[in-house]
């Protein structure tokens, strides 16, 4: 039973990763892509981490999985913020078009 729930959570998380990749490929500009990506990977990893901790054997493993999720979520949020701020500043200074190839 627990395995089934864990499997479902992991499958659902994987769907979010695929959705994030589709967004990365299909969305028209950098801000839309950023939106798709940060949401998808945050939720996807959360679901997979939850599923994996249901199958973990020791509390230590659960603790480490939770820590991993926490730091990825943090880095992803801050990274998204930095990229967006960078892209906006580039757009303003008109040098953003420098690297279109």
């Amino acid at each position: 039973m627990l395995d089934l729930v864990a499997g479902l959570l992991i499958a659902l998380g994987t769907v979010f990763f695929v959705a994030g990749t589709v967004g990365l490929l299909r969305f028209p500009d950098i801000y839309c892509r950023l939106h798709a990506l940060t949401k998808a990977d945050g939720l996807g990893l959360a679901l997979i981490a939850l599923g994996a901790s249901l199958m973990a054997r020791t509390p230590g493993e659960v603790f480490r999985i939770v820590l991993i999720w926490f730091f990825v979520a943090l880095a992803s949020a801050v990274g998204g913020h930095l990229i967006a701020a960078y892209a906006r500043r580039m757009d303003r200074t008109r040098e953003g078009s420098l690297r279109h190839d």
Partner: protein
Amino acid sequence: MTTFLGGVLIVLLSSILAGLVRVLRGPRMADRMMAAQLFGTSAVAILIILSRVTDSPAFLDVAMVFALLAAVTLVAFVALALRRVR
């Protein structure tokens, strides 16, 4: 269960490979960098599942290193790129 998780691993790896198109096409440097960021998270997911499938908790430490250092390359990119604009 192992076969199912094996399938999940293949899907996650394939999504990294599909995302590579964005790295190669760009068009902006930030697009390429951002895609690499997503791959980092996918790699963490793959490692968490792998540690379960092969029953090796040491992979969680690898995932932890990925998680903690995920921001380093990105920050290097943003800080260096902004240095030029000012």
